[in-house]
């Protein structure tokens, strides 16, 4: 479903050329849950921007769902972002002045049809357990709830790929586990997910781990025994019932 072949990205600033990606290749099949890790400066963000259709590579190929996006223009990339990719960010990025359901409806502004997506947005919110919070503004929601609204927004157009950038970075352990539990449920339902993170504990919830080092793939292997976020949550609750960890 995703084919990345010898992808490079360089930035030229005057005579100085910075190589950020130096030939990255991998494939992701439909339904995989992949974590991409790497130290800062390893090229994670650039790779994520290219995978998300926010940037184009200097050379190499990138195919998503049969479309060659390495040379695509703004219109085609925008359409792909609108219909095939759902984004989840560390900082949620909800619009403050509108309520949760309207935030979730955002992609429909830029869709081709004439639907406003209200019904789909309601369903997407219910799927992340926020059906009762549709009319709340982001400022009236907790961080974990805000991130779940953002996940609903990413899923509302039924994209082929969910792309998350440090999705638990701004959340406490419990809320982070809740987000990961949603991701694992989506994975079981057959959704393709890519999570970019520097946190090994987060990556351990995926089924495959790609490690970037200096703009290259230094490791690409299945996660032997993915952690179960639901089990983590239950353990947390048990600890809370026992009066917190000693």
């Amino acid at each position, binding site marked *: 479903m995703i084919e990345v072949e010898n992808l490079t990205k360089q930035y030229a600033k005057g005579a100085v050329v910075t190589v950020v990606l130096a030939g990255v290749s991998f494939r992701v099949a439909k339904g995989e849950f992949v974590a991409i890790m790497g130290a800062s400066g390893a090229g994670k963000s650039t790779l994520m921007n290219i995978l998300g259709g926010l940037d184009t590579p200097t050379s190499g190929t990138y195919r998503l769902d049969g479309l060659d996006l390495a040379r695509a223009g703004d219109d085609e990339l925008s359409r792909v972002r609108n219909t095939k990719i759902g984004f989840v960010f560390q900082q949620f990025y909800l619009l403050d002045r509108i309520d949760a359901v309207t935030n979730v409806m955002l992609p429909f502004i*830029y869709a081709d049809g004439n639907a406003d997506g209200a019904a789909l947005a309601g369903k997407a919110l219910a799927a992340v357990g926020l059906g009762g919070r549709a009319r709340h503004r982001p400022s009236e929601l907790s961080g974990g709830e805000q991130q779940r609204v953002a996940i609903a927004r990413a899923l509302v157009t039924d994209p082929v790929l969910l792309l998350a950038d440090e999705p638990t970075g701004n959340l406490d352990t419990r809320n982070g586990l809740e987000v990961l539990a949603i991701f694992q449920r989506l994975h079981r339902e057959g959704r393709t997910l890519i999570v970019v993170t520097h946190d090994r504990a987060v990556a351990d919830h995926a089924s495959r781990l790609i490690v970037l080092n200096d703009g290259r793939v230094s490791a690409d292997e299945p996660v032997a025994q993915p952690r179960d976020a639901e089990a983590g949550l239950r353990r947390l609750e048990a600890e809370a019932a026992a009066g917190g960890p000693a």
Partner: protein
Amino acid sequence: MTRTLRLFRQAIAALLSNPLRSFLMMIGIVIGVASLTTVICIAQGTRARIMEMVAKQGWDLIMIRAGGAKQVFAPTTDRTIASLVEADEQAIENSVGNIRYISSVQNQRGWEVINGATSVKTRIFGVGPTWHQIRRRPVEKGEFIAEGDLVNMARVAVLGFRTAKLLFGGTDPVGQTIRIGKDAFQVKGVFAEAGITPGGDDWDDRIVLPLTTTARRLFGRPYLEQIVVQVRNPRALPRTVDEITKLLRERHAIRPGAEDDFFVRGPQDVKEAALATSSTLTTLLIALSAIALVAGGVVIMNLMLISVSQRAREIGLRRTAGARQRDILVQFLFEALAVTLAGGFLGAAAGVIAATLLARTGVATSALTWLPFAMSIVACSVVALGFGLYPARKASRVDPAVALRK
């Protein structure tokens, strides 16, 4: 709902979410359009009044004034320019075609007119028997000066409406006697009320006598202030003006290249001169309004540029949700357009109110037409697109990868 409509709604929502910024964006436009609208309303009102004035005087009226100075309205002082005489009137009548009526005119201010114990100071006119038809001054009571009165240098007078009121109060002046200088005059008629002309001439405050009487009995001079002509065919009026000019130059022995010692003008000249005066001022005021609009546009551009950098994350987020560069461009242009058009609407309303109030107080005349609204819409669109395009392009080029970087 189409994508364009959805983008428009996003623009409106963005404006409503920051009312202070939207208000600041609007205020320059409101002021500019308000002054533009006021100026146009008043200019249109003035224009309408000029046309009305010319129509009232008649499109068939030619005025020949003594002296070469070009004066549009009635002269403010009596002049003793000895260039026009009664013989000129005779010559014009005999050799120029297209003339229905012609009358010589003399006048002098400051004559004392007495009825018993009452006296008024007024302006005396000496005219021919068709003058009231040429100048369209109907006689309400009694009758106008006749041909025979001129032959006899008759001591008869036709009174202006207010002069008659002042001298006779409620009683009918016709047939009564008044004194002008040493002589007693019989009142032959009273003019209908006419009011004050746009030139400041009070048509109700005067006495009209036979020309021969003023020339020989009162003023003691043959020279005329004016000759007035009513043409048969107004369309041929310019040619008639040329013929009169040519004839008078010959009669006054003016060499080729030398200036006329008289001034002939038709209704077109009155209209054009009056419009030129008002349009100079209008042009100036419109230019000032345009400056206000440009200032408003600069304010809009600045506030939009600030807004673009403040909203970079929002723009980035919209891009990840599938907004194309041109969707962002269109939304920001819609914001500029909506703000200026709203400002333009408020400004136009304020301008119409201001013009109406000015007209009420009598400072100016105002007319309400579609023109200021059409001009406001055009001006606002130009300002919005002109000053909104740069910030909107800047917004569309926000790199989402940079804007959303942690």
